[in-house]
Every structure is written in structure tokens, then in C-alpha cells.
């Protein structure tokens, strides 16, 4: 992407702390913004704030990632077609609930993998036909290896990461770029009160800046804090025979 365009940047899950921070960053560069989220009316003050601070158009669109049947119509409703679509959608749930309650686990799996992958897939078709566009999936380091403490969430993110990788491979020759963002720990409403190590924890604005740069520089896969790349390399390198006995 070079410079601001009049084509909108769509942010799926635009009401989250990371989603709003990304919206501010792309708006700052002069892009019109579409925030797509559930109960989107609650974001009216955020809408006005982004629009006033950056002097761009910001619109709100109702979007529920679990309603897969309405996704094609949702994509068709965005006029003009977006230059960039970013999915920030994710739901951690409680691992203990996810273990016992298949319905709870299904929501986590669908919110982190099925929904975002299908939605980006629909946009991918349209972008491939137009020969241009950028798709960004915010996945997670939790998808790099399943661990006892969060494997339901992690496995869904692993699926999403693999989906993005395949999509990138397929679309590389068709002018459509796919970016995978792995944030690591982020200080948000979702993690408030958790005791997170400072050096490994990014602010939402940092995720936004790195995401923006990744789009600008056509990066493929980024870890928001590079130390996470190293950590996950080490975690992946541990033999399963040892790994299964560890608590990480």
C-alpha cells in the first residue's frame, strides 16, 4: 500500500483495544475506516474520536463472526471495496470451561478460526478478482504449539495461522498480500489484572504500529515483539517426550 487511499480499511473486531488502536493508526495515515463489531452502536464515541482526530470518514457496521451465513452479504455491502481487511477477532474463553463444555470450546474454535478464516476467505476471492488488496489476520503465539493451559484457543489460532499461510501462498501471484500478526502478551481489557512480564507485554498501540508497518512493508509473518519469535522457536524445539511433562 502506498500512501492514503479513499478505499476503506475494514477492521473486523474493531471494538477491541487492539482493533481501536489499529483503526487510529490507519486513520492517522489518512485512510477511511470501517469498524465492524457486535453491538456496534456502543462504539459511537470511538467512531467520532477517530474521525475527529484524524480527519477521515469512519463508519460502524454490525458484524458477528459466528454468523457465517451473512458474511457474503457483509462483504458485498462494503462500497467501495476495501483496500485492507484486518481481522482482530479472538476469544480466549476459560481453558477449564473449554475442557469440560464442548459448546464453550466450539465458540472459542469458531471465533478464532472458523469465523475469521471464512470472512477473510470471502474478501480474498474479491481481492483476487480485482488483482489487489491486503488481508491481515491477527493470530497468536499460542498457535505455535499447543500447551495444557490454553490448547483449545491455541489450536484454533494454529488453524488460523495455517489458513493465512496457505492463503498467502495461493494469492502471492495474484497481487493480494496476506500478513500474519502474532502479538504475544498485550495489555488490554482482556488481560487486565493478569500478572504479565513487562518485557514480553506490548501496548495495543505497539501492535497497531507493527501491523501498520507490516502492511506498508509487505511483511509476511510478524511477531510484535521480536523476543517472542525466539521464545516460540525454543518452545517448538523441545522434544514432545519432554514437552508433555512440562508445565508452561
Amino acid at each position, binding site marked *: 500500500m502506498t500512501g492514503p487511499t479513499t478505499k476503506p480499511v475494514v477492521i473486523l473486531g474493531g471494538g477491541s483495544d487492539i482493533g481501536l488502536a489499529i483503526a487510529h493508526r490507519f486513520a492517522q495515515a489518512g485512510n477511511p475506516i470501517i469498524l465492524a463489531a457486535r453491538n456496534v452502536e456502543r462504539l459511537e464515541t470511538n467512531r467520532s*474520536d477517530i474521525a475527529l482526530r484524524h480527519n477521515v470518514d469512519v463508519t460502524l457496521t454490525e458484524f458477528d463472526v459466528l454468523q457465517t451465513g451473512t458474511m457474503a452479504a457483509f462483504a458485498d455491502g462494503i462500497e467501495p471495496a476495501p483496500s485492507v481487511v484486518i481481522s482482530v477477532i479472538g476469544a480466549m474463553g476459560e481453558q477449564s470451561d473449554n475442557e469440560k463444555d464442548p459448546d464453550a470450546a466450539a465458540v472459542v474454535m469458531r471465533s478464532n478460526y472458523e469465523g475469521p478464516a471464512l470472512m477473510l476467505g470471502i474478501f480474498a476471492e474479491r481481492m483476487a478478482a480485482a488483482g489487489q488488496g491486503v488481508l491481515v489476520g491477527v493470530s497468536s503465539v499460542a498457535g505455535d504449539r499447543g500447551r495444557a493451559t490454553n490448547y483449545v484457543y491455541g489450536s484454533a489460532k494454529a488453524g488460523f495461522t495455517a489458513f493465512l499461510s496457505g492463503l498467502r501462498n495461493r494469492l502471492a501471484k495474484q497481487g493480494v498480500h496476506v500478513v500474519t500478526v502474532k502479538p504475544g502478551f498485550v495489555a488490554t481489557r482482556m488481560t487486565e489484572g493478569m500478572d504479565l512480564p513487562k518485557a514480553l507485554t506490548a501496548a495495543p498501540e505497539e501492535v497497531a504500529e507493527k501491523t501498520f508497518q507490516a502492511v506498508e512493508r509487505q511483511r509476511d509473518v510478524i511477531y510484535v515483539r521480536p523476543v517472542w519469535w525466539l521464545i516460540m522457536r525454543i518452545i517448538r524445539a523441545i522434544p514432545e517426550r519432554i514437552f508433555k511433562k512440562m508445565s508452561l
Partner: protein
Amino acid sequence: MMRTSELMGWGRYPRRPGPLAAPRTVAEACDLAKLQGVVARGNGRAYGDSAMGAAATIDMRGLNRMIAFDPETGQLEAEAGVILGDVIDAFLPRGWFPYVTPGTKFVSLGGAIAADVHGKNHHCDGSFGSFVDWIDVIGADGQITRASRDQNPDLFSWTIGGMGLTGVILRAAIRLRPVQSTWIKQQTIVTPNLSSAMAAFEAAQDATYSVAWIDCLATGADLGRSLVMLGEHATDSDLPHQHRLHPFKTPDKSKKSVPFDAPSAALNSLTVKAFNALYWRKGKRAAGETFVDWDSYFYPLDGILGWNKIYGRRGFMQYQCVLPLSTSEAGLTEILTETARTGQGSFLAVLKRFGTQESRFSFPMEGYTLALDFPANARTLGLLDKLDAITVAHGGRVYLAKDARMAATTLHSADPRATTFTKMRHDTGLHDQFASAQSERLLL
């Protein structure tokens, strides 16, 4: 969510741990306002203990969204946690600037209203409150009340300059001024002593902005020697050709910062003397007309992030008083003489002419205001008590947004409005609800 934090003002004195809650939603802020003994805190630019809650403190920085802007009237609606610098960043490129700005752009709108801050244009435009159209205030019951000059006028007039003691300021509508460029046309006048500095202010009543840096270490015949700086927003036709093409472009500057507490010895009477002498010489050379970018003109200290750390870990105290016109020269002479005599030396001393102001509890009154800063130590505390006495004897008063140590008796004898303010707080039940370390100290 409530957590315990070490609370302090910009002067880093006093400090004390206390519960701090940072609401993310309006509903959370309303719930927090119902706790007893709370006060709202903006961006922590009050120098002393104004924004340290008696029992708990509400950090309003999370409620920082801009709501609406009307280009017909220049009215901006925003939440109280919005920082003035963000308003400038958003609107100066579109030709708007705050009508009134204090010496730092890092104040929140809520803080600016609570302290009814003033700027270099007070003599012609009045204080920040003059350009507030309405405010939304969360009361003791957690309900939001809109107040303006017509609607709930009592709440409006008590809240502007009310130091957060009438409720939690949640939103406000403020006016911005249309400007033609980001540049200020500055004129510097060198004045050899206090009376000529005051004469320069009196002669410059038509200037939009006026302020003086005063060499507070000069004594004898040089007492009060100053650089009086006048400013106007540069119009298109004022601008030199290199700026005319891009009147709203701000030059890039590197930000300097003070990364750690300086050892206390770094700022002693010798370094202060050297700084003041250098500033004087530099200023004299710059006498005459120059074009200055808005950031350097209004916020010279903001360019050095964390400048409050140069006084070391023990912190510092600001002293700002205002004296009525008739006693200004005599009172200022006494204050400057006393300051120079102790050799405490203020790093920065700023003199400013105020215009008239009628308000219920705001600081400004017609006359001259002097701001000084000193390291926080026992000697300073002794000096400031003496300065209080001089101020009170001359019918003046002290700025609460900078105060960290004044005695309640000083405030109530200097300013009969304080007693009325306290009575109002008792009568309306606000007294037990909203309280800061400062309001407890000053029996407000």
C-alpha cells in the same frame, strides 16, 4: 479496577500511596464517583496535591474521546481525559487553536477546567473557563448533570476553578480559535527593572499574548529586569515566504528528555545563576521581532520531556501568586527581594499581567501574577511562608493548581471566597463526597 499507586503531582512533592482507579467507560466513572472522598485526576500536571484523592483517586485519562466538532462555531465536544496537545494535533492543521492554553500542552481538558487555567492572553481573553460552553459533571449520586451559563449555572460557575471538588468533570464543550498559521510573531522587549517591565505590559494591552521572563537573581537597581515577550498569531501576509506555502506545517524537532532524577546538587544557586545570566544574554540578542513555531512559543518546557526531574527525587515546588494592580509593584518588589536574599533562586520566573475576571473560586484577578519554582526542601518551605505573608498583606492570593504546602489559615484569610466555597460544599453534601489531599489540608 482499583490498584494502589504512588500518587504525586508534577512537582513530585508531596507523594503518597493511594488507591487509583482508571475507568474505561462512563458507567464505571459514575460508579467510582459514588465512593466517598474521591477526586478526579487528569494528566497529573497540577504541581502539588490537588489531584490526590483523600480516600481514592479516579484516573480520567481513559475517557479521552473527541465527540463532535462544529466548524461554524469552533466548538469541540470531548471527554474530560482528552489532552490539550491532542486537540492541537488534530485541529491546528485545519486552522484551529485553543483559545486559552497554559504553559504545558499536556493538561487534560478536565484538569484545565477544574483549575480554570490561564495563558499568555489572560489580559484580553480571560481564563480557560471563558471558552467553555458546557460541562457534564458526575455528582455524588453518580448521575450526570449538564451545566452551562444558562442550565444549572451554579454548578457551572462553581465547577470552573473548583479544583474537582464539585464532582467529576466528564465531558465539556470548548471553543477553538481560527488561526491562519501555526506561527507566532514574537516581539521581545528588554526591560532593565521591574517598573519598566510593568510599563511594557501596560503599553502592550492590545497584544494578544504577553509574558515576561524575569531574572529573579538580579538585585539592587537591576531588580526585576525582564524580557517581555509579546506574541500574535501570524496571518498569511505576516509570514516570511519560506513559511507561506505551508502555513500549518510544524517544523520537526527532536524531543529531549530527562531520563533520570538529577542529583540534588545539579541544581544549586550557582547553576541557576548561570542559567539566568545566559538566558538574559540570549534574550537580549533576540530583542525585536521573530517568528516562532507554536510549540516553542507556548510550550518551551514541553520540549524537554520529564523536565520536572531536574530537581531530583525530592521534587520541587512552584509558587504562583497574583497581586492586585494597585499593590503589584510594591508586593512584587518585596517578593523578588526576599527570593534573591535567600539565594534560593528560581530556575524559571515568569511574570504576567492579568485582565479582569469575575469568578467564584478561580485564581486570576486583575493585576500581576508571578510564578517561581524552588527545590522541595525545608529552606523553601520557610521562604514560601514568607512569600505567603507578603502576598496576603498586599491583597493577593495563591494559585491552588501549583500549591502543595499552603496553610488553611493563609488561604481563608487571603481569599474570603474560600470560606463561601467551603460552606457551599457543606450545604450541598459535596464536602464528604469529593475531597483531595489539598482540600483536606486547606479545609475546603
